[in-house]
């Protein structure tokens, strides 16, 4: 009885208990093995991280935008809804930068299908939740931490960056629930 004091209870297991213990130990071992084995696959969380400051990251991102922003046929810089549109370099040619801040992701990155990109991501102020939809890929972005994600888009189209880490609000149009960005993939 769970309320009674047992006497000498450290006794061997009986047959059913041994069978069950064997099953769950084997099952636990298999489940554990799946974790490092799964890590040998191609879709894993990055560990590549650099320490930075919001100021340094913002300035670096601005230089990146300056260099790679898409220009129209008159040479003018292209923006969409006020956000710079930037053609990201492939990883052999350089790194890309993505900034999260209350309450926007910038720039809008343009990627090419089947090419690989190294994207540095950080926040300028609070914690933000990088949530790429419709792929539903989610990462945590922190200030002072530059998170480098290496990714290769496999389909063309427009994806959206939602924020899924609560980051405050000041008004109906400046809030966690209006924070959004885009990533565009072309052929």
């Amino acid at each position: 009885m769970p309320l009674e004091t047992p006497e000498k209870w450290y006794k061997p297991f009986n047959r059913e208990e041994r069978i069950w213990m064997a099953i769950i130990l084997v099952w636990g071992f298999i489940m554990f093995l799946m974790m490092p084995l799964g890590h040998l696959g191609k879709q894993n969380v990055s560990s590549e991280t650099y320490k930075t400051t919001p100021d340094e990251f913002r300035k670096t991102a601005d230089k990146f935008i300056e260099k790679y922003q898409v220009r129209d046929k008159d040479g003018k810089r292209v923006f969409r809804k006020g956000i710079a549109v930037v053609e990201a370099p492939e990883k052999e040619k350089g790194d890309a930068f993505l900034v999260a801040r209350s309450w926007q992701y910038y720039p809008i990155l343009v990627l090419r299908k089947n090419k690989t990109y190294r994207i540095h991501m950080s926040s300028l102020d609070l914690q933000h939740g990088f949530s790429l939809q419709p792929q539903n890929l989610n990462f945590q972005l922190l200030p002072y931490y530059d998170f480098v994600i290496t990714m290769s888009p496999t389909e063309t189209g427009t994806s959206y960056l939602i924020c899924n880490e609560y980051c405050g609000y000041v008004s109906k149009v400046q809030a966690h629930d209006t924070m959004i960005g885009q990533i565009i993939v072309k052929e």
Partner: protein
Amino acid sequence: MSATDFSDQFRTCQTTGLKVHRPAQRLIWINAVSAVVFLLIGGVMAILIALTKWQAIHLLEQDLFYRFVTAHGTNMLVFWIVFFEMAGLIFGSAVVLGSRFPGIAFGWFNWGLMITGAVMVNVMMFTGKADVMFTAYPPLKAHPLFYLGIILFAVGALLYCFQFLYALVIAKKEGWHKGSLPLFTFGLLTAAIIAIWTLLSGAIAFVPTFLWSLPKTIIPDGSFLRINQVDPEFFRIAFWGFGHSAQQINLAATVAIWYLLAHLTTGAKPVNQKMCRIAFVLYLLGINLGSVHHNLVDPGLSATYRIFNTSYLFYAAVIGSLIHAFSLPAAVETAQRSKGLTRGLFEWLTKAPWSHPGFSGFALSFVIFGFLGGVTGVILSVEQLNMVSHNTLRVPGHFHMTVVGGTTLAFMALTYYVIPLVLQRKLIGEKLAVYQTYIFAVGITIVSAGMTFAGIMGAPRRHYDIEMSNAVFQFPYATAIKPMLSLVGIGAIIAATGLFIFIGIAVLSVFFGEKIEPKVEKHVPPHAAGAA
């Protein structure tokens, strides 16, 4: 001071024969009543925010939504559950062992710290000074009194945990109890040890954050207490050492309560004490490592660290749960079969006391926590799967199965025993209690299902408006997402009905139920040195 000074302070329970230390009973009373007060606040918040997630209704405004999500989370996860657990610790030590609870004034002091902290935190939240969610991640900053309130509450609870350990020592030393702890108390001991770890981790997270939140007028530049920045990942590691481990306290306590309820309703006895106790010890070794599943997609951590810790130490803690998954039904089946219910494979189950809220609450909680909640938790704890679920609504879908369908439902079922047996009041509305467990279980399962499927489709959590009507772009979520969100609202209405029935029965019974006269009897330590 000899132990016999306490002999006049006991009564004998007419149902169980347990010797109840009456000052301890009053401490149990105050902690249990406090728990239900915060359950009520959290419950009202729940229905308001659920009716906001239901896009067609979208009840609250933006600011109140975020405020009430914070208030709902904090009141439920912290105050409702921990106050109840403190009552449980006092019961599991003093009452189960037939011992005095040492330090009654200290016990009241600890309750005082906890209630002060809880009130402070609620005032800060409801006055809009702490719209930071239960997780309060820096650099989000709340009013200093929010952090101070949490710290006071945590200190009170931590002191209670140490007092619980001391009660176990005293019970043995003064001869109130001899030999191994009963399994129920052993389970609570595991919970208390996890709680000590939890609260220490919480102190490491919140004390620097509290100092950081204080303005320069109170802590000027140059002072050694001046903290200008809390490293965000440091906070996440320390906070989840508190936040998730707090859920593991709940797990250990809930499992202990399942053994107790199974016994009270069917006479079930643990089939093998060693197996059950090893399972609890596996929790001690491995379960708190799993908190890293909150950091699976964070920067700055290696894969080895992540994998090792989210495996719960090579799945040691999961094996603990799987042992209980065997041991509890085995105990019930053995007890039922010994009553002659041996027809076919399952008569022991079909003829179990399903119309008894103690049994239905235990059984429903066992299925929802163990199979739905625990399994989804282990799934979400895998690195690759976490990438497609982190911070989506799938996460609240998981934890409403464990914390609400599991722990809260088990605590409710236990309360139907605590009120007559410990608090000595006859239940008012006892017939409704039967239905209450089912209504609550069905409601919360629907809520969790809605959240899980919406999250799989990418819906973010803690988000006021997934249609993003005020943003520069709108992401076109799958059409099925809106019906899923409406399930959250519908399920919440059903669950809230079950919740308010429970609170109604509990409050009416505790304050207006017919008093059961205590059988006051002298009780001296039966195993004291030199006793007869």
